[in-house]
C-alpha cells in the first residue's frame, strides 16, 4: 500500500507528459488544415482542436478513456463493438493456445530430460524454433488447418499462440526436471527405486515450482501470440483484429482503445496466473510469501 503514492505520482506525471506530447504532435494537422482553409489558428483553437481530433497522431488520454468507457461499459457485451466481447474472443484463443503450449512444452521437456538423444536433438531446435517469424507462416497455417477441415480461425490462431508459449514452459520444465541434486537422486537409489519412481516421486514434484513460475511468462506469450495471430490471419474479431480494423478504417481511436484493452486484459491474465501460482505453491507445501 505504501506504493500507492509513488504510483499515482508517476501515473500523473505520465499523463501530463502525454498531454504535452499530444498537443505537440497533433498541432501539425491543425496547422495544415488551417493552411488549406487559409485561416489563422489562435492558441485556444489549437488547444481545443489538438485535444479532440478524430484522427490524432497521439490521442489525448481522456479520448482513450472515453472510447474505452464507451466500448466496454456503455455497450452490451454481445455487441460487436464491445471491447468485452472482442476481449473474450482473444481470451479464448489465448487460453486454448496456453493449454496447447503447456502440453507440448511439458511433453518435450520430459523427452529431453529422460533421453540423452532427445536432449541432443530437440534442444537446439527448440531454440531455433523461436527465431522463426511465425507470423510469416500465419497464412499458410490458416490454409493448412482449413484444408484439414477446421472451419474457424480459432485453431490456427491457437496454434500460433501455442507456438510462442510452449518455449518458456519447455525451458523451465527442463530446468525443473533436472533440478534434483545428486543427493536426492542417490536417496532414491538407496531405496532401490525404479526409473519411473524417480520421475514421478522426485523429478516431477521438484519441477513444479519451475513449472508454475513459467506459467506467467507462458500466458503472456500466448496472449501476444493470440493478438499477433489476429493481426496476421485477417481475423475479424478479437482485440488484435480490432487494432487492425481501427487502422484500416481510419478510426485510430478504435485502435488505441483496443491496445489499452489488450494491456488491461494481459495484466489481468498475468495477475490471475500469478495468484494461481501462489495458491498452487501453497498446496505444494511451499512457504507462503
Amino acid at each position, binding site marked *: 500500500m505504501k506504493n500507492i503514492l509513488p504510483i499515482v505520482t508517476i501515473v500523473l506525471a505520465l499523463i501530463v507528459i502525454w498531454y504535452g506530447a499530444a498537443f505537440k504532435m497533433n498541432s501539425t494537422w491543425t496547422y495544415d488544415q488551417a493552411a488549406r482553409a487559409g485561416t489563422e489558428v489562435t492558441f485556444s483553437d489549437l488547444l481545443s482542436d489538438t485535444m479532440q481530433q478524430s484522427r490524432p497522431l497521439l490521442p489525448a488520454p481522456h479520448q482513450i478513456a472515453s472510447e474505452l468507457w464507451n466500448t466496454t461499459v456503455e455497450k452490451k457485451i454481445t455487441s460487436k463493438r464491445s471491447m468485452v466481447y472482442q476481449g473474450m474472443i482473444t481470451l479464448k484463443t489465448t487460453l486454448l493456445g496456453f493449454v496447447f503450449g503447456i502440453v507440448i512444452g511439458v511433453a518435450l521437456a520430459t523427452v529431453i530430460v529422460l533421453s540423452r538423444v532427445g536432449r541432443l536433438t530437440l534442444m537446439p531446435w527448440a531454440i531455433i524454433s523461436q527465431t522463426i517469424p511465425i507470423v510469416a507462416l500465419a497464412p499458410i497455417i490458416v490454409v493448412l488447418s482449413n484444408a484439414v477441415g477446421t472451419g474457424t480461425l480459432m485453431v490456427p490462431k491457437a496454434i500460433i499462440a501455442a507456438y510462442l508459449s510452449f518455449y518458456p514452459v519447455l525451458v523451465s520444465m527442463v530446468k525443473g526436471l533436472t533440478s534434483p541434486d545428486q*543427493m536426492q537422486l542417490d*536417496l532414491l537409489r538407496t531405496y*532401490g527405486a525404479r526409473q519411473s519412481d524417480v520421475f514421478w516421486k522426485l523429478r516431477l514434484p521438484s519441477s*513444479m515450482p519451475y513449472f508454475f513460475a513459467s506459467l506467467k511468462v507462458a500466458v503472456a506469450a500466448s496472449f501476444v501470440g493470440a493478438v499477433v495471430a489476429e493481426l496476421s490471419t485477417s481475423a475479424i474479431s478479437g482485440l488484435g483484429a480490432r487494432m487492425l480494423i481501427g487502422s484500416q478504417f481510419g478510426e485510430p481511436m478504435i485502435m488505441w482503445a483496443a491496445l489499452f484493452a489488450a494491456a488491461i486484459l494481459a495484466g489481468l491474465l498475468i495477475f490471475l496466473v500469478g495468484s494461481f501460482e501462489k495458491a498452487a505453491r501453497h498446496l505444494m*507445501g511451499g512457504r507462503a510469501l
Partner: protein
Amino acid sequence: MKKPVIDAQNVDLTFQTNDGPVHALKNVNLEINKGDFVSFIGPSGCGKTTFLRCIAGLETPTGGRLTVNGMTPEEARKSRAYGYVFQAAGLYPWRTIRGNIQLPLEIMGFPKSEWKGHIDRVLDLVDLRGFGKKFPWQLSGGMQQRASIARALAFDADILLMDEPFGALDEIVRDKLNEELLKLWAATQKTIGFVTHSIPEAVYLSTKIVVMSPRPGRITDVIESTLPPDRPLDIRDSEEFIKIAHRVREGLRAGHDA
C-alpha cells in the same frame, strides 16, 4: 569366528575427471561387524563420503573386494539393506514430514495398511510425534535432521549409513541428538557407519573410530573404543575420553601433514 557384515579388502577407487584421474580411495581394508558403531573421521576430501557411498553401492570400487552380508553392495542395495542419512536433511519440501517418511515405504512396496504403523513408530523414536503434518520448512534445522533420520529408519534396514548428519547444527542440539542416536543404537543393535568432522563426536559415539588421510584416501588408524557402552554426556570430560580424543587428533594431524 563372527563373519563381518561389511568386509572391504584392498578397495581402490579412482575417478576419471577432465584434469586426469583422482585417487579417492587407495588400498582400503576394513571389517565391520554386526552391531558396530563405526565413525569415519578425516580431513576434507579424504574419501569418507566416497567410502560410505561404496558401501551403499552408490559408487563402484575400481579395485579390491567389498561385500555386504556376503553380497555385492549393489545386490545389498537392491535388497534394501541400507538406511542412508545424507549430510543435509534433504527432505522433499512438497511432502509433509509423514509424507517424507512414507516415501521409502511407497517405493519399496510396503502394503498401504502398514504405513501408518511404521511412520508412527519412527516419529516417536525421533521425538517428532505431533509434527507429522508439518512441512519441512516449518521445522527447525535440528528437527528436520531428526525427520531425515526417521525416514532412514522407517523401513528397518540393517545397516544405517550417516554422512555428517549433524554438521549443520549447533553444539547443544548436536549433543542432544548424539545422546538419542546412542539410545537408538542400543535399542536396535543396528550396524552404523557414521561420518563426522568432530573429534568429540566421533569418540563419544563409536565403538570403532576410523581415521583417514587424503591424497590418496586411505585408512591411517583404526581405534577400538575402550569407553563403556553406557555413556552419559559428561563422559567427555573423563581421562579416558581425552586420551582417545588425543590419539585421534594425533592421527589426523599426521595424515594432514603427510
